């Protein structure tokens, strides 16, 4: 096989994808060494290291090429991610990684697009973008490293901080009701919603693979401990710390929205795995459909001739 990388035909056929010249050689998958860039600036012991390690593993296992990977993030400790990956990437502004990534996804369906970010980035400043990217079902995988705190700005309350959490902005303990990320994602219309944790690396990799294979907006909430500002936050989900890690029961129907809400309602640590997964046309496909219909009418006309036809009506 001259092209060992699997490209779904739907992606390859899209008009907007520019032609990629090939060098005509057989290519092997990348090794961890080839895909690692800067040494991460995270604190030793930070949960985010695991996510990075498994991202490398995913790239290796799924034989993704450098040039086809695009890693995008907003701002936060977790959002430093793209610098540590040797591939095309962008470190955008706080909370807006999703619309930025949407611009990439919609205009360049030939790329594998992964977005990483924190809980503040996703659910506070970027909250509305999560809703709209979900409802539009724009093709990309989004991994939220939820540490229940603002790490980069050094311990302020985050939208997922539990009630009573003592932070620099809530010295008496957090008083605002935290949001429920899973419920919010499902109700917003995300078509793949999963929950995992950095302390179970096999599960994390499984979730990443499934998210990558999902044709639509796939989101993973991944508990990732901030050892600096919220030590022990997720111990209850870590068997090594005396907690329990329970999978979503096999009987759970991932297309059943009500059942998914029920799972999301369980008190921490709850269950881990795919809560909700449905197939709904992506914005990418719907827009492509509009394009195909319009192009059919245009026929073999060159772009300037199409524009000329419009001008002729303006005389």
């Amino acid at each position: 096989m001259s092209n060992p990388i699997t490209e779904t035909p739907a992606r390859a056929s899209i008009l907007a994808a520019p032609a990629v010249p090939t060098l005509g050689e057989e290519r092997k998958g990348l090794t961890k060494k080839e895909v690692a860039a800067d040494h991460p600036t995270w604190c030793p012991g930070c949960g985010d290291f695991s996510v990075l390690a498994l991202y490398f593993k995913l790239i290796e296992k799924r034989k993704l090429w450098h040039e086809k990977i695009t890693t995008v993030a907003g701002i936060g400790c977790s959002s430093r991610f793209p610098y540590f990956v040797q591939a095309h990437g962008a470190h955008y502004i706080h909370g807006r990684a999703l619309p930025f990534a949407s611009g990439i996804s919609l205009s360049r369906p030939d790329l594998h697009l992964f977005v990483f970010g924190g809980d503040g980035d996703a659910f506070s400043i970027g909250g509305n973008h999560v809703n709209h990217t979900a409802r539009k079902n724009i093709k990309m995988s989004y991994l939220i490293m939820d540490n229940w705190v603002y790490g980069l700005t050094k311990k302020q309350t985050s939208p997922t901080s539990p009630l009573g959490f003592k932070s620099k902005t809530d010295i008496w303990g957090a008083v605002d009701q935290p949001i429920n990320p899973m419920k919010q994602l499902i109700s917003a219309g995300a078509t793949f919603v999963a929950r995992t944790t950095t302390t179970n690396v096999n599960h994390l990799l499984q979730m990443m693979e499934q998210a990558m294979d999902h044709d639509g907006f796939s989101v993973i909430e991944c508990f990732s401990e901030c050892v600096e500002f919220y030590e022990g936050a997720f111990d209850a989900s870590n068997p090594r710390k005396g907690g329990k890690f329970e999978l979503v029961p096999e009987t759970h129907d991932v297309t059943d929205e009500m059942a998914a809400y029920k799972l999301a309602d369980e008190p921490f640590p709850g269950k881990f795995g795919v809560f909700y997964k449905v197939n709904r046309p992506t914005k990418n496909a719907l827009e492509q459909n509009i394009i195909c219909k319009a192009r059919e009418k245009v026929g073999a006309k060159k772009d300037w001739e199409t524009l000329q036809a419009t001008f002729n009506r303006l005389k």
Partner: protein
Amino acid sequence: MSEATISNPSSGGAPKISKISEAVIRIAGNSQDGIQAIGGFLARLAGRSEQEVMTFMTIPATISGGASIFQVRIGSGEVLSAGDEADVLLAFYQHSYEGHLSSVKKGGMVVYDSDHVTPNPEFEKDYRHIGLPISSRTVEAIGGTAKDKGKNIFTLGLLAKMFDLNVPKIEKLIHERFTGKDESIVKNALAAFHAGYSFSVGHLYETFQFIDAKQKDRPQIVMNGNEALGLGLIAAGVRFGAGYPITPWSDIMELLRRELPKYGGMFIQCEDEIASISMAIGAGYAGKVAVTGSSGPGISLKTEALGWAIMAEVPLIVVDVQRGGPSTGMPTNVEQSDLNIACYGGHGDSPRVVIAPANVEDCFYMAIEAVNIAKKYNVPVIIITDQAIATRIEAFEEPNLEKVCQDISPDLTPVADYKPYDLSTPDGYNPRVVPGTRIMSGKYPIATGLEHDEYGHPTGSPQLHMKMNAKRRKKLQALANEIVPPKVYGPSEGNVLLVGWGSTEGPIREAVDRARAAGDSVSSLHIRHISPLPNGLEEVFAGFNHVFVVEMNDEGLYGYGQLGGLLRSRYCDPKIRGLTKTDGLTFKVKEILDRAKGTIATGIRKL
């Protein structure tokens, strides 16, 4: 109305026919009367008759109802503005009559709907009054349940008679306009038109005939500034855009949403302006030159992301169709008060390109220029227009589309190595390598808003921050050397120089023409490239005693408007002064001249 010759002076009976070179017609009514449609027909007809045309309209802020006007100036020679005073007022209601009489030239003509308007005898000595039962005659002509819907087309018939307009051409326009609709709509429209056309005979004591216009090389096209800008972006090769609705920008996004799929592109309606600019930047990062746009309030929201695009050096087009500000301001009025946010809006040192089209035709060509600048210099370009240019219709020579249309798809050919922020290039820019491109060195770039090294990795080095700041600045200095400096309109030396930007070009030029005809020493300079400024403007200013910067914004704390302030800080020339206003209306020629005269004690004639 400039009268050339008067033939057939009649003493009653048949109306006399006067030859004219131009006419200003103001139609006043309510927004649901289809006044814009009459204006549109007249403008399009003028375009097809090789005449120059310019329109001006006000739209009420309310959704339906509310007073609305459309003014159209048609000329066989050059038409630079929509005209200070109307030759003919067509008033549908008492409020239209009373509210707009003052816009009519003394001795001008008022045609009113006698079904709704009671003329004021006091005005009858200053203006020629013609009362016609427009509403009832329309109902009579169309019949049925149409009520007086169609009185706009009836009125078009009246005007066609009055100005001896080409009837077959108008019939063709009516057909084109209503094709695809119910057969009876075309029939009713034609019936209304002919009723108006034949009714007027005997009721008008004067009719007019335009002298022949100069033959043009290419056919003319007729459109407004928003259309010209949107279509210019398509010609430039833009295939991706994202936006959020706001008047008067929405027309552009609607046009692009509708048209781009034909070219394999798309325009996305986003949840807000921040998402819109982010999506456009994302597409830009991925290899497109993408567009976003808004009006003042939305531009404010975009500024953080704009700073990222400047820092990360990603091409981007941002359209700002200005309206009255601050805040929600005067959303359906014109103002030029976003120049500061366009040039300086954002945190940190964030040099960007700002260009301002001067008329409708310029919107088309500057859109292409903007795209080419963005792509070459990897920089956001703000195209700043305003409500007046966005909505006014002009006829201009059809562009040679085969020549101007361009393909700007990204090149994904593998490269040996790539430094996205290469410091060794002489002018601070190099072609971008975008995702999907293989880099044989195995070192991949990160686009970033953090200060960075040449590969895009974060750095806290003061040295690098200074070098990168210089790089981002140097690109624009290189661009400045490329910009063709504007030419002075009128002699390049004299007493007064009027400086303008954007939609005021027409009235300023007309002011120069009028002043010079009266023997005054006035020239003008129109600045279309605002950031960076073209080279050599100081030499232009040196040729004049007084420099007035004419702009539709407030005189500010120190007595000059926003461009005025910029020019003063750039040239430290105390003779640069402001000539500003914020009444939400376009400049009248007379206003400009009176204000200039009023400011100079010695008068504007050369000493």
